[in-house]
């Protein structure tokens, strides 16, 4: 069912494409840095832990939309068709999802670094740091899994980023609420026993999303 060699090859292809088009990664990073800087200019002065947390997740959410919108748009229809004749379409969606998840983990950790740099680390003083990082990583992976399928639908509809925002926002909300709550609790330094339900919930969402993407994608790529 799952063809690992194909998937590994496709991930290598994605990496090669990204290395060739370094501008796209630079664009994603610049987007995050600009967003953080705008937040820094707008907030000015102190803010509480919950505002710190909320602002971080909003920035990360928009960064995710910006980063993942391109995942099905960088090839034209002809090259996609060529790809689907070479490999199982399911391998394509799995490879893209895995690659996007890796991208988002990297991007969210970088965003966190910039965010702490500009907005200060006062919110992290009492935090349970391991939990908080887990929430950030799980959030990044979750955004990637949900938004990859949405990006595929939006690009097939021929109306890229705008449609993706409309389709994607309500669908990432369950995940966003779960990880936001988990990260807020971990910033307050709450024990694992309390936050683990949120982590399990977001992991469950990821698994369901991935399964649905696996099942539905073969119907999506055809014209």
């Amino acid at each position, binding site marked *: 069912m799952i063809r690992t060699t194909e998937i590994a090859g496709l991930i290598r292809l994605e990496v090669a494409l990204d290395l060739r088009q370094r501008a796209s990664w630079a664009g994603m990073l610049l987007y995050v840095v600009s967003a953080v800087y705008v937040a820094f200019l707008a907030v000015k002065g102190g803010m509480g832990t919950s505002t710190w947390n909320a602002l971080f997740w909003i920035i990360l959410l928009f960064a995710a939309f910006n980063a993942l919108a391109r995942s099905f748009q960088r090839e034209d229809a002809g090259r996609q068709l060529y790809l689907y004749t070479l490999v199982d379409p399911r391998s394509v969606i799995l490879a893209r999802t895995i690659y996007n998840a890796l991208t988002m983990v990297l991007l969210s950790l970088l965003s966190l670094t910039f965010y702490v740099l500009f907005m200060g680390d006062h919110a992290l003083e009492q935090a349970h740091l391991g939990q908080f990082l887990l929430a950030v990583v799980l959030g990044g992976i979750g955004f990637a899994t949900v938004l990859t*399928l949405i990006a595929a*639908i939006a690009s097939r509809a021929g109306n890229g980023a705008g449609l993706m925002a409309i389709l994607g*926002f309500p669908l990432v909300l*369950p995940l966003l*609420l779960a990880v936001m709550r988990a990260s807020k609790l971990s910033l307050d330094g709450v024990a694992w026993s309390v936050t683990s339900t949120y982590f399990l919930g977001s992991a469950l969402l990821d698994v369901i999303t991935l399964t649905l993407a696996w099942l539905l994608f073969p119907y999506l790529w055809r014209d």
Partner: protein
Amino acid sequence: MKHWWWKSLAIGLLLFASIAALWTPLSPALVHVEPDRIAPGPMEVLVTGYNSNFSNAGSSISFFENDGQRFCPERTEVVDDRHLRLFVQVPGGLRSSMTDLQVGQLRYPGAFYTQELGEGIADRNCEEGHVQDGVFTFPNRSILYESIRNLHFHVPMWFTMIALMAISMWKSTQVLGNTSLDRDRDALAAVHVGLLFCALGLMTGALWARATWGAFWTSDVKLNGAAVTALIYLAYLVLRGSVPDAHKRARLAAIYNIFAFMLLVMFLFVVPRLNAVDSLHPGNGGNSGFSDLDLDNRLRIIFYPAVLGWILLGLWMYDLRRRTSRLNELLEQ
């Protein structure tokens, strides 16, 4: 009209449930006492009831109860069916700071804040009121009061919406097999009718929230769920609007619909359990559910027919909708 029977069943159930929901009186209750604190000595207390029948001899007999110890009013003056004046000699030495009042069969727990406590009193042998007439009534509960009737309208809307969205998802899975435009039309019709029920559920809910919680919209998991549902299916309509080719539209919309419904089920049934403490809704976050109020199944007798009736009405509307849109398509060709 070979399916006439379930349509008449829908009409019958809806008529029964709606009339019963609006017509059934609330059970009598004591709602107010003036003054609401007592101290040893002679007191005059004005009791206000709701739907009460104080002029009936048996239902104006009253006593006070403090930590299981009773004392009786010396004289009772019935003002009218809803008002009662009690003249009582409050004994010194009551144990608890909360004194209950019982008039007839009606109980008002913690009616009086009691001052100057002591070690207890000798129990008096008070006469108890008679059983009230056995009229069919709804539970009367503070904060809810008459708005309890909305249970039979607000909740069935969501049941119907979920049913219609599930039908839509089922039709969408059939679209994927052979890109059937007929099934796609059915899925769209179900979403249209489902969104109507979503709007009705939001409206009845907003009115109920204003009456009981004090605001039309609050930050509650179930309200977030309702808002997300509305957004998802509006996005579904936008997605359909942005694809001109009919077959491609059918397939894309079907994929989004299946994906969205699965995440919606997660959001409505899993996320609320993650942070149940946050919900203001009955039965969540430590709030008592309607089942606690409904000890003798009086609400259920009307609630279940209401749910079934609204779902059948939703199916009927869906059937009409898909048939008219099919006819419209044929007319256009």
